[in-house]
């Protein structure tokens, strides 16, 4: 691949990524408009998104995309101008259009040559264009009505338009060539007079040859309507200011032009010369301009207002002014978005790894400085290690993203699915700012989708059913996220009909998933829903109930070393809680030592540390027992035994009291080493079945320390206990010892 075509491919892939972002923005904007249809900012954002896609697609000559987006843009343009009300049906069509553009982009990106798929896209395009056309057709009747009114300006007519054009300084830098725009004008009609305005040109020694200082006053003789003339400037509109004066416009319009560009003293003369205005008007204007300082309290805007009041300004001019204003607003917002930089995730990973190495190196440099007893060097290394810490924190935070982005996508799902099912549902999002590693966020989206759909399909009742049982007709689904004990907890809560444990048991029996006389606690009954091949839907809908539901969700979440807990009350609602580790997240850890090994306990889980007074320890078996914690019974685990670490037990040991779900448990360790901020390094595939440890971290010494997964440790201990109670044939501990 040549350098050029590689560059092209790179740029193209950036285009696809950006266009998809734009579509997401478009979708967000549409959904927020459904709540607040009059929000001008959002409508503008919507228009901008589609306009940008069209523009960039044009650069890559993706003509199908351009043609389709053009239609969407035209509709949005009318929406923006207030010619079209925002209504649910329009929103539907636009959402579908956004989806369709996404599909087109996907197709182009895959470089597929699948004819059938292409044809299908074409049909879909056509269907949508027809639907969109309805919103454009409306156009004509409205215009027809206007035609009857005194303003005849909207009717295309032959005449000499005056075009006042000023390019911005960045025009050349943005790859625009004014001359081609002027050439294009020739397609519309004849340029009778053209004056180049070079008043902004600085002295030669100050002139930046890459800046554009040009402006033009053009008289264009044409039969084209205003829309077409404006279209000629479409691609340069961000980089120029354009004023259009219709042939029949009153001369007084030029007054404002002259007023607006006072830095161009010759303008008045030029206008007179090209025949746009008479000398008298210009003189009046100049006088007004000279007077204006006295009218300090009534700035330029009032002139516009007076003109409108006097009815001397044609609608076109108001239009032009309005579109100029909105254009200014657009540029302002685009400036915001340009503050983001798109970076490939693997570059970030490489950076984080390097920084991690730096932390270790700076720690060992500090150690050397200490040993050398060189105080100035010690100071320098301390300074360095502080900076390196800072860099590490910043680098790590780069990978963290807000979960709100993922949650936001469910607005659309809830909206679509609810309307399909005839249900009324409101989506509440709590804790959107909770940070989570990007890789986890990506992997959690699918399971969440399943859960939300399940809630919508099976959980939420129909509005009339809800009213009949005294609930508010509009149901509520909440998505919430927060950090807890080194985990992220995500909840999907609905206030639907809840899950009946008895029904689950009956269903499971029917399917032969459990034996007939098995007894269950309430929680165990609910957990039956996670069994493979379990589906409670009476009718299999296209939404859920295909029997691949909850067991897959559970498997996916457990693959992320997470946990799912289901709580439900019949008639009141269901809460599904997902607990996820923060894989690559920074967590504050608490270092403890057992034998020669260091372990990290997530600090959020640590409640307190107490001296393990032997008189208060009562051991049940080798690895666990009870501790008298100020009169309360604290079950504790002896790490050394669970992990089978060969070690001489020191005289003084400590107990770290940690939270485990809702209860407290103690971990008996040899030594406490204090807090330490840890970067979790996932253990590889080899340790995927390892329990009790949720990751590892590299200490300042370069040594690897394992991070304890407290809930999993408790499970290991409980199982050990069960085995013992059941007079297990094999003593697991003995086995582990043998392995060591």
């Amino acid at each position, binding site marked *: 691949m040549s350098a050029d075509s590689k560059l092209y491919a790179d740029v193209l892939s950036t285009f696809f990524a950006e266009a998809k972002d734009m579509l997401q923005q478009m979708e967000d904007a549409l959904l927020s408009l459904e709540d607040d249809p009059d929000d001008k900012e959002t409508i503008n954002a919507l228009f901008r998104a589609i306009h940008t896609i069209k523009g960039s697609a044009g650069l890559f000559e993706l003509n199908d995309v351009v043609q389709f987006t053009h239609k969407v843009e035209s509709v949005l343009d009318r929406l923006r101008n207030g010619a079209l009300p925002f209504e649910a049906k329009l929103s539907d069509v636009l959402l579908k259009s956004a989806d369709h553009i996404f599909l087109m982009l996907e197709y182009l990106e895959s470089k597929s040559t699948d004819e059938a798929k292409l044809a299908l896209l074409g049909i879909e395009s056509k269907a949508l264009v027809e639907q969109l056309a309805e919103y454009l057709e409306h156009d004509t009747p409205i215009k027809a009505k206007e035609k009857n009114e005194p303003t005849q300006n909207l009717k295309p007519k032959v005449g000499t338009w005056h075009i006042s054009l000023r390019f911005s300084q960045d025009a050349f830098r943005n790859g625009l060539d004014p001359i081609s725009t002027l050439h294009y004008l020739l397609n519309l009609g004849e340029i009778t007079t053209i004056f180049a305005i070079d008043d902004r040109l600085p002295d030669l020694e100050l002139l930046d040859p890459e800046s554009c200082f040009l402006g033009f006053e053009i008289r264009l003789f044409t039969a084209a309507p205003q829309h077409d003339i404006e279209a000629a400037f479409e691609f340069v509109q961000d980089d120029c200011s354009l004023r259009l004066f219709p042939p029949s416009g009153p001369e007084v319009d030029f007054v404002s032009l002259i007023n607006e560009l006072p830095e161009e003293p010759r303008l008045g003369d030029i206008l007179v010369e090209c025949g746009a205005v008479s000398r008298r008007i210009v003189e009046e204007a100049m006088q007004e301009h000279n007077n204006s300082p006295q009218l300090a309290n009534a700035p330029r805007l009032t002139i516009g207002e007076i003109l409108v009041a006097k009815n001397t300004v044609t609608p076109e001019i108001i239009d032009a002014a309005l579109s100029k204003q909105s254009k200014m607003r657009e540029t302002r917002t685009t400036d915001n978005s340009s503050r983001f930089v798109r970076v490939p995730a693997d570059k970030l990973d490489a950076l984080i790894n390097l920084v991690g190495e730096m932390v270790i190196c700076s720690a060992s440099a500090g150690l050397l400085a200490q040993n050398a007893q060189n105080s100035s060097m010690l100071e320098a290394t301390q300074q360095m290690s502080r900076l390196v810490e800072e860099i590490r924190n910043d680098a790590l935070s780069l990978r963290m993203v807000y979960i709100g982005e993922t949650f936001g996508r469910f607005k659309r799902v809830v909206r679509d699915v609810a309307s399909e099912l005839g249900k009324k549902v409101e989506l509440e999002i709590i804790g959107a700012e909770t940070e989570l590693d990007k890789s986890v966020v990506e992997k959690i989206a699918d399971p969440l989708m399943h859960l939300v759909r399940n809630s919508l399909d099976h959980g939420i009742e129909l509005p009339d059913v809800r009213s009949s049982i005294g609930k508010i007709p509009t149901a509520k689904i909440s998505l919430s996220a927060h950090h807890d004990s080194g985990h992220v907890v995500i909840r999907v809560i609905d206030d639907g009909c809840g899950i009946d444990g008895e029904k689950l048991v009956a269903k499971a029996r029917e399917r032969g998933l459990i034996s007939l006389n098995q007894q269950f606690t309430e929680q165990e009954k609910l957990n039956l829903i996670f069994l493979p091949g379990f589906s409670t839907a009476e009718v299999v809908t296209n939404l859920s109930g295909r029997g691949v539901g909850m067991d897959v969700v559970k498997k996916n979440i457990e693959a992320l070393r997470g946990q799912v807990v289901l709580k439900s009350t019949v008639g009141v609602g269901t809460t599904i809680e997902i607990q996820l580790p923060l894989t690559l997240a920074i967590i504050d850890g608490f270092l403890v030592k057992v034998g020669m090994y260091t372990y990290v306990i997530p600090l959020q889980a640590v409640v307190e540390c107490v001296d393990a007074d032997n008189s208060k320890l009562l051991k049940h078996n080798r690895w666990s027992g009870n501790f008298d914690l100020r009169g309360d019974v604290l079950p504790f685990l002896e790490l050394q035994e669970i992990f089978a670490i060969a070690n001489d037990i020191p005289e003084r040991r400590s107990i770290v009291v940690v939270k485990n779900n809702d209860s407290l448990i103690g971990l008996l360790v040899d030594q406490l080493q204090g807090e330490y901020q840890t970067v979790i390094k996932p253990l590889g595939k080899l340790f995927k079945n390892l329990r009790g440890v949720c990751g590892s971290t590299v200490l300042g010494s370069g*040594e690897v320390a394992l991070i304890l997964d407290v809930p999993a440790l408790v499970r290991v201990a409980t199982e050990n206990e069960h085995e013992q109670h059941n007079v297990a044939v094999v003593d697991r501990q003995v086995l582990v010892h043998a392995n060591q």
Partner: protein
Amino acid sequence: MDAQAFHDSSMPTYLDDKQANEEGALQFLIFSLNDALFGVNLMLVKEISQYGIVTMVPLMPSYIKGVINLRGSVIPIIDLSARFNHGITTVNKRSCIVILDITQEGESNDIGILVDDVAAVLKIEQTQIEPAPAFGASVRSEFIAGISKFNERFVVLLDIAKTLPLDDLADI
């Protein structure tokens, strides 16, 4: 030990420079373990690292020695001797960790193997590789890709994919 050459001169020991360019020859890293010689395909070898601090990972089979920090990555270390049921390796001052890049199911994983000593890099002709004997070898025959000779001693060439199947190793 007769494999000193590798350490004394930093030059790898090739059989013959001419042969190096011919097709059909494979390069192997030869190391010793419990006084026997083994070889792994050089293409799999990422680097050779000194034996440092290995963190024990609990509740794992004895052949998983633990994990080390290799420039920021946490890499599991396999005790090959324990894997061959020859008992746990006693670490001596020549002990090394050979880092292998194992690609299985399209996923690339780094794994370290603990060996007693690294002997040489050897170029071996396909024709000089004998098939694995059905029995009588010091390790299970499915681990063996072939047998060859180095300095008049037998070298067991390991089939790493079979010796270290990540999925099976992970099943505790």
